[in-house]
């Protein structure tokens, strides 16, 4: 039985201590994992609980109930007759998100296609880190840049009367959203097996035809996931729009007018409200709304990633 090196003999007590240490460490790691989940649950419970008076409390509903949100087109919650119309905020969020995605999706997906299909390796090594640096820029810095520099460019290029408008906020937001779309799309495109491209080229297709008709559709679910993640970020982004959009709660179709988004309203107004007032509950209602929207978008993105993985590994 004694064929290997002799192991040191441990007493029964030191063995028990070793086991106890293992159990303790495993429990500490378990607590770390669960506190992350607990934190998330606490946030959800708190936000929804503070938003409930809008739906359930008759006292709050006299001033800020669901019908007030749709009955008026003015958002002036501070005053003798408070007005809680959500339409200008909804329209503002829509304008900013649409203009941001209109910039970010073509540029992001285009850059991803270039990086994975056409670019020489050395250029790719420059492009990917550069876009990752863009991802690392804090959103308050992007907002400040948009407020001071970009707004003047946009005004000079378009002749708009307002320096701070939906287009300015959308362009700045696109800068913030671009890295997400680029990174996820590029990873999806690189995950497409080489055999797809080789088969297409062997059949006589040009590199662009291959990229557009074979590789991009194959990675389609991944690119869609990237776009959805970018969309979730665009909807929830606060600091950039707070600084770059002018924050005027107006209803207009023009991209050159100032807009006010849900997230900027919460950020600007939550500091003022007294606990428990209808204004307070309304702002939490907006927060709950934003949470639901981004949650749905993120779940959708997750489903798309699953589909991509199944398709690429199966085929």
């Amino acid at each position, binding site marked *: 039985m004694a064929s290997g090196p002799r192991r040191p003999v441990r007493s029964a007590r030191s063995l028990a201590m070793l086991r106890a240490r293992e159990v303790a460490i495993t429990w500490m790691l378990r607590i770390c994992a669960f506190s992350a989940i607990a934190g998330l649950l606490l946030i959800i419970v708190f936000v929804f609980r503070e938003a409930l008076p809008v739906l359930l409390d008759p006292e709050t509903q006299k001033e800020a109930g669901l019908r007030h949100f749709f009955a008026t*087109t*003015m*958002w*002036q*919650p*501070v*005053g*003798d007759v408070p*007005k809680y119309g959500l339409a*200008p905020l909804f329209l503002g969020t829509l304008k900013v998100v649409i203009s941001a995605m209109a910039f970010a999706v073509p540029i992001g997906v285009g850059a991803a296609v270039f990086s994975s299909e056409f670019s020489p390796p050395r250029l790719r090594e420059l492009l990917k880190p550069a876009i990752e640096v863009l991802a690392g820029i804090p959103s308050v810095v992007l907002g400040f840049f948009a407020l001071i520099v970009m707004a*003047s460019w946009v005004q000079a290029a378009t002749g708009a*009367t*307002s*320096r*701070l408008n939906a287009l300015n906020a959308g362009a700045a937001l696109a800068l913030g959203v671009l890295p997400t779309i680029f990174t996820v799309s590029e990873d999806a495109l690189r995950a497409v097996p080489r055999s797809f491209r080789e088969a297409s080229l062997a059949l006589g297709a040009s590199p662009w035809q291959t990229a557009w008709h074979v590789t991009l559709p194959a990675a389609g679910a991944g690119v869609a996931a990237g776009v959805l993640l970018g969309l979730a970020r665009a909807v929830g982004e606060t600091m950039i729009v707070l600084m770059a959009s*002018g*924050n*005027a*709660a*107006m*209803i207009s179709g023009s991209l050159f*007018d*100032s807009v*006010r988004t849900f997230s900027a309203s919460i950020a*600007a*107004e939550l*500091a*003022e*409200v*007294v*606990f428990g*007032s209808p204004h307070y509950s309304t702002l939490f209602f907006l927060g709950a709304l934003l949470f639901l929207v981004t949650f749905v978008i993120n779940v959708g993105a997750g489903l798309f990633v699953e589909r991509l993985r199944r398709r690429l590994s199966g085929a």
Partner: protein
Amino acid sequence: MKRILPFVMSLALAVSLGASAARAGRGITIKGSDTMVIMVQRWAEAYMGSHPGAIVQVTGGGSGTGIAALINGTTDICMASRPMKEDEKRKLRDRYQTMGVETSVAKDGLSVYVREQNPVKELSIPQLRDIYTGSVRNWKQVGGSDAPITLYGRENSSGTYVYFKDNVLLGKDYAASCQTLPGTAAVVNAVAKDPNGIGYGGAAYARGVREVAVRKDAKAPAIAPSPESVKDGSYPITRYLFLYTRVRPAGDVKKFVDWVLSPEGQALTTKVGYFPVR
């Protein structure tokens, strides 16, 4: 590394606990109006200089923020550029069985800014009301060039916003197109960059813009905001700046408030652009 880490962590914990224990119970916190924050910070610095050992912490955020903090119990003193509203007083009474104690500590004029090149030099209060509620949209309707008026204002957490709404707009709503900016300095900056802009804010902040002379109505003389016109009340848009406490000031808080109302403290108001109340 394995041996040192637990020691370093317990040391950090001990230091932070000790620091917070030392801080608690000796400092005064003041929160509220961005209009008053610079002046109150100067007061705090001068007070701490002449009273070694005293700690005064000053934060801005808007009059509404400060009053909310007073009601929530997270500050000792609140600085406000507008009087407390009825429902704020009611909330304070529900929570602390007190109506709050108001102390006027300075006087301020609310200026209306336009860019220096703007030909309009005088406006009446009814005209300001029409401009800010959106009934008048073009500068030529008030004597300027033919250009649309761009409105700049403050966020609704600001006491300046509420004061302007109550006293100049007489309770009417601001026009939906009014862009909201986070502080008077931001308003001045925006108006300085925009040839068609108009903005309002505390008289202390005007740099690079012109302050418009205001007349009470179409027949009254137009008065420009200046130390004399604000002090004697001839400038039509003047207001008091307040410090609110939950109960009559006592202890450290009383010492600070008394110092603020002393000749030494009141002299500092003019250095920041406001006016003494005594």
